[in-house]
């Protein structure tokens, strides 16, 4: 049996991905970046919205390519009986399956955990759902901002004393995908030791709650519901985003008394009221006003460098231009080139870490069915004639 080898801690692990949009694909991406061989099952009859929506060429769909580098694509039509059989046969060669189809869909197709463990007893079956797999509201569906709203996270993001505004609309899917990837790897360690596979039920909403655990503890311990607090921080003052020249913003956090002393010297503030954190917290609005007046005419990046040189935590608030021009991110190969199916170079987003003996990150997102031959032939051992027959029967499309 053949397997794509790229090194990394998960080399030799095969993952089957039955996922759509972002959260499920992100889980697969995390595993692929760690060295797993991740096979994405697709079909012309039910293409991922990110392959088709507002897209000229489904093999060059920008959104799809952004979240699916380093994966393989195989076409199997799960709406046909032969397609389902084919899928089960393929699943029997896989260590991990990740799915984020609509609640219950995978069972209705007859390829749920109970069905697949018949063909692969030690499979690790990861099911991702907004509310998880069971419970009175598990039938409900939604997108990323719904996860954040339901999980309590949105309620904390907003200007002080005002209604919640929530995180940027893009937040939540990728965090959810990472939680799923971590759980799958914990299970993989268990399997290594015992040979036992298992079913994993991951909840997007609960993932969001995990990200605000300390705020939940505030309620749990004191019965107090934390409210939107703008940019406030109970233990750091000043702490916020301040306007700069050209519509830019700078983030400044006087992380301790020493940093405050340095910051105050830069601004020219001499105030004994502000020397302790308690004093600064008591006059926070006044300090914020003075800071904003001082930063307003300055260049954000220059000011951040000046404050850093004085030992103050500061950063220009990065726009999309700043991000793609960030030389530190290029230097660390966070942004890095890979090669697409036509041999063209394309830049992708790497993982959040560097690691010794890491997996080689070399491949762009696959074109539709790019790896049909490898998967059906090399992995499953189907003859060319049998592959043709399945294609004619509509199982491979």
């Amino acid at each position, binding site marked *: 049996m053949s397997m794509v080898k790229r090194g990394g801690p998960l080399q030799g692990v095969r993952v089957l991905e039955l996922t759509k949009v972002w959260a499920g694909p992100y889980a697969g991406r995390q595993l692929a970046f760690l060295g797993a061989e991740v096979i994405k099952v697709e079909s012309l009859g039910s293409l991922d919205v990110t392959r088709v929506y507002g897209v000229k060429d489904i093999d060059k769909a920008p959104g799809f390519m952004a979240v699916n580098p380093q994966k393989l694509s195989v076409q199997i039509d799960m709406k046909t009986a032969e397609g389902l059989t084919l899928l089960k046969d393929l699943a029997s060669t896989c260590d991990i399956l990740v799915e984020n189809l609509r609640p219950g869909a995978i069972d209705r197709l007859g390829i749920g955990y109970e069905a697949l463990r018949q063909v692969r007893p030690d499979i690790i079956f990861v099911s991702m759902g907004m509310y998880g797999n069971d419970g009175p509201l598990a039938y409900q569906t*939604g997108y990323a901002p719904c996860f954040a709203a339901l999980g309590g996270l949105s309620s904390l993001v907003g200007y002080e004393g005002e209604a919640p505004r929530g995180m940027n609309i893009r*937040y939540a899917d990728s965090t959810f995908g990472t939680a799923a990837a971590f759980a799958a790897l914990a299970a993989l360690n268990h399997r290594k030791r015992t040979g036992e596979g298992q079913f994993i039920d991951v909840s997007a909403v609960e993932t969001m709650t995990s990200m605000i655990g300390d705020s939940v503890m505030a309620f749990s311990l004191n019965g107090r519901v934390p409210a939107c607090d703008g940019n406030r921080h109970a233990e750091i003052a000043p702490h916020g985003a301040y306007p700069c020249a050209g519509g830019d913003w700078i983030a400044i956090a006087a992380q301790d008394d020493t940093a405050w002393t340095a910051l105050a010297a830069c601004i020219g503030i001499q105030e004994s009221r502000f020397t302790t954190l308690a004093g600064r917290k008591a006059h926070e609005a006044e300090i914020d006003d003075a800071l904003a007046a001082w930063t307003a005419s300055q260049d954000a990046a220059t000011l951040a460098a000046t404050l850093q040189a004085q030992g103050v935590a500061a950063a220009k608030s990065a726009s999309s231009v700043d*991000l793609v021009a960030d030389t530190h991110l290029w230097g660390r190969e966070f942004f890095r080139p890979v090669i697409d199916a036509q041999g063209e170079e394309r830049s992708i987003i790497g993982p959040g870490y560097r690691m010794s003996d890491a997996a080689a990150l070399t491949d762009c997102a696959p074109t539709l069915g790019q790896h049909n031959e490898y998967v059906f032939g090399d992995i499953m051992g189907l003859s060319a004639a049998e592959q043709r027959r399945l294609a004619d029967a509509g199982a491979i499309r």
Partner: protein
Amino acid sequence: MSALRSIRVIELAETVSGEYCGRLLADFGAQVVKVERPGTGSPTRRLGPFKETGASGENSGLFAYLNTSKQSVTLDLSTPDGVAALAILLKQADVVIDDHAPGWLAGIGLDPGTLAQTHPGLILCAITPFGQDPPADRRHATDLTVMHASGWAYHTPSAETKRPPLKGAGRFMPSYEAGLEAAMCIAACLHDDRGRFIDLSMQEVMASRADYVLGQMVAGDMDVDNARTRFDLGGPAGIFPCRQGFAYLWMSIAPHWQAVRTLLGDPAWMSAFTDDWLERGLTPERIADCRHHIGDWLKGQDKDEVSARAQALGIIMVPVNDPGDLIRHPQFLHRAFFTELTHPALGTALYPTAPYKLSATPVALTGAAPLLGRDNAQFLA
């Protein structure tokens, strides 16, 4: 019987990111020995929220959340004796978690550059704001500055163009995200039983969480500029006040509009909009008008009741829950997301568990966070 039960972790971390990583491993049964400074312990012990009744000291809810199921030992790593004692602990360890500034590890005998020779087989994960090689203008960082350097703050909240960017939920979003990423990396490295150094950058973790948009931008498929709304999707989606609390409503396609029409009882104002305006007729004026009318209507509704009715019609609307809602929420109760633990200073309280349910090796919080140095006798004999 949990998934990581035989794994031994030494946690040198003193901030939220590394401590959260340790907790995630302890959730699965790893033995996590937390090394703390004698006298004061981890700085997170002195960060809120604090329990407001009872004695002070050992009463941080933050520390309690981050350190369930761990052991605590005290070592002064600024002394040769402390470092020597650590070296003994390390002999038995599979994993070390750290989140100090770059360079600190070399000072205690764990130089990442020579790790493969000095500690073959050890997985060493170092979490830092910008990685092991920060440029001069990024040496001082907090979660706030990381949030801004990653692009999330600039683009939060959606649709905001004038008021200051926001830091996100609570104080520690980048730390939680980095802790989760670190735990994932460590679990992967444990699988192939090979020692590794993991250099984790919080900025990169956060930026990679935006890969759907940032990946298109860096590939040249999506415009980049200084717009605060550059990550947005546009449209009237957002949070609306209800009779009590708030609801989030998503609308992006014609069927959503039809369903909302049904929910609202086909009010006259909706006839000023074409059926497909969400797809083909978005203008700032229409969005504002739509939000105004829907907002008026939702003010008289109950967030849970109206969300349930909307969901039945195929509308993507959900209540905006706050932490108080969650603890009595039927879905969370059904899934037993919160579990009761008893701590010597904090008493009995509900704690969040984990967002994944594993059929063979479920997460189990085996004990409340340890008091400082509770396990010295066992580990420093």
